């Protein structure tokens, strides 16, 4: 195989860190040491009167203006070069689309496959196209030193390459509301072979042919707001929802209803029709849900006892 | 201290400035009725700056002020220009 020439993002950024940290530590220690030395040497008990009244020294001033200037310009240039490395996507990168919504991730691969975790092959650069359906989110993988905001209406992208198989944290870095800190998932780097397999068979039956409501709820982000264990979240918990009596606000008035299938269906397809009392009308309308998927979700919610 | 003298700007000077302003207004309206493409913005803004200059110099009496105020005004305008200018490094090249 003809390997494209590229350096991984981690290898691009780390030397810049080392350089700036190194220079900073040296400078800092020098300043702190000089300061402490002066304080000790010229403390009043030892030096009751000042022994010099020099108030300036042009030579010194020039030196300590010029040297930092050179130093910071080097830092700037080095940092900029590294940034260019992060921005230049190697040719032949695998494209994945990351869709962020409050407060969940969904990754779409070229063949239309979806997943809630980001699966990537080891050793092959991946370009992630970033799409937001609501507010600004941030795509952040510390292990690969990459981050990019996901701004609605903008086409942002990042690239990275995993050089070892493993599971790496993926965070939402840009504050996006209540569930911000739960917008966490992982990058699963699989050896190339295994990745191909996953793409074809959904990673060995993990993705069943039949629509799995729970998995769907996970993928579509329902579980970002609705818990399964009765604990309160941004939205009402799914636990024991079916058959419950709830108070909803619709069109200004409140009324009580018993949750049934029709109500669940309506809540999912038209979330703003009835707002459960005590909650904000923030549930997104997921227009990309197929009728089958809605049914699967309803069935799943019914089953959460 | 300094700059305490008060200049009296004559009615004539003010009226002349006003006539110049009306003339420039007519000019802007005139040229923007023509089809000049992108130069329209440039032309209209140039005239607007001229008009602004007249207002500042005569109505606001900057012509008769000392150096300090002129400098400060210059600083303020440059600041605004820079704010807009640097933002365009993003707007133009995105």
């Amino acid at each position, binding site marked *: 195989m003809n390997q494209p020439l590229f350096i991984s993002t981690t290898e691009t950024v780390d030397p810049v860190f080392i350089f700036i940290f190194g220079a900073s530590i040296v400078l800092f220690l020098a300043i702190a040491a000089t300061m402490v030395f002066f304080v000790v040497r010229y403390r009043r008990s030892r030096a009751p009167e000042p022994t010099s009244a020099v108030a300036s020294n042009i030579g010194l001033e020039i030196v300590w203006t010029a040297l930092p200037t050179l130093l910071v310009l080097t830092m700037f240039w080095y940092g900029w070069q590294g940034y260019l490395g992060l921005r230049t996507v190697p040719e032949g990168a695998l494209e994945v689309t990351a869709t962020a919504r409050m407060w969940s991730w969904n990754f779409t691969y070229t063949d239309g496959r979806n997943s809630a975790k980001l699966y990537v092959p080891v050793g092959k650069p991946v370009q992630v196209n970033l799409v937001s359906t609501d507010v600004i989110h941030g795509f952040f993988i510390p292990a690969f030193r990459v981050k990019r905001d996901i701004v609605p209406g903008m086409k942002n992208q990042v690239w990275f390459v995993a050089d070892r198989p493993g599971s790496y944290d993926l965070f939402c870095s840009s504050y996006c509301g209540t569930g911000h800190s739960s917008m966490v998932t992982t990058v699963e780097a699989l050896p190339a072979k295994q990745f191909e397999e996953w793409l074809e068979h959904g990673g060995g039956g993990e993705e069943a042919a039949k629509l799995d409501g729970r998995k769907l709820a996970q993928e579509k982000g329902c579980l970002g707001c609705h818990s399964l264990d009765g604990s309160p979240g941004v939205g009402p918990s799914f636990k024991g929802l079916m058959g419950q009596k709830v108070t909803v606000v619709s069109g200004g008035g409140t009324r009580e209803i018993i949750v049934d299938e029709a109500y669940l269906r309506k809540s999912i397809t038209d979330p703003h029709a009835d707002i459960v009392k005590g909650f904000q009308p923030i549930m997104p309308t997921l227009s990309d849900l197929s009728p089958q998927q809605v049914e699967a979700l309803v069935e799943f919610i019914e089953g959460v006892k | *201290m*300094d*700059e*305490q003298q*008060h200049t*009296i*700007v*004559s*009615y004539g000077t*003010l*009226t002349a*400035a*006003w006539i110049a*302003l*009306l003339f420039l*207004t007519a000019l*802007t*309206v005139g040229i*923007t009725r023509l089809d000049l493409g992108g130069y*329209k*913005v440039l032309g*209209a*803004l140039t*005239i*607007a700056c001229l*008009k*602004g200059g007249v*207002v*500042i110099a*005569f*109505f*606001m009496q900057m012509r008769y002020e000392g150096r*300090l*105020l002129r400098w*400060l*005004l210059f600083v*303020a*305008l440059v*600041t*605004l220009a820079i*704010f*807009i200018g640097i*933002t*365009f490094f993003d*707007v*133009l090249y995105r």
Partner: protein
Amino acid sequence: MTHPVHKDDFGAKLGMWLFLFTELLLFGGLFLLYAAYLHRYPREFAAAGKELDWMLGTANTVILLTSSLCAAMSVTAVQRGDNRRALGLLGGTILCAAGFLAIKYVEWGAKFGHGIYPGSERLRGGAPGESVFFSLYFMTTGIHGLHVLIGGGLLAWIATRVRAGRVAAGNHVLLENGALYWHLVDLVWIFIFPLYYLVL
């Protein structure tokens, strides 16, 4: 308290100018947005700009220029000790301010009548740049209109002082500062006018 009457006309004027700088930058923020969005939506801006009535805009420009002339002349009048004329001129300025606002009212009314106002159905449905243009238009002229209102009120208050003789030759920095504020309102309009009514 017993502050000795410490009079520093130049200091007062300096303070006023500094305040005017802040006003300049306040509108500067709006012009910044205008510039950026004009660059992005030249065509939509052009189309939307055509819906503004340039004749009303021109009329308002002339009115404001005239009001500024009156304000500037009233300073001259006071300096020459002619407080009565100064009062008349200030009256002229305030009258112009009222006329300006009346025309603005008509203009805005017409826009509202066509279903054009921030967040209106029509703008929500229209081209993206259109909504941006009109929102900017309403914000800019709205804030400017507020300044006209404040400036008019300020000058009216100063007029009462002129009338009471508290502002007179040699002691007229208050009037000068009021006039400066008014000229700033004019200055801002000088830029609003071509950008919104004419350029496109």
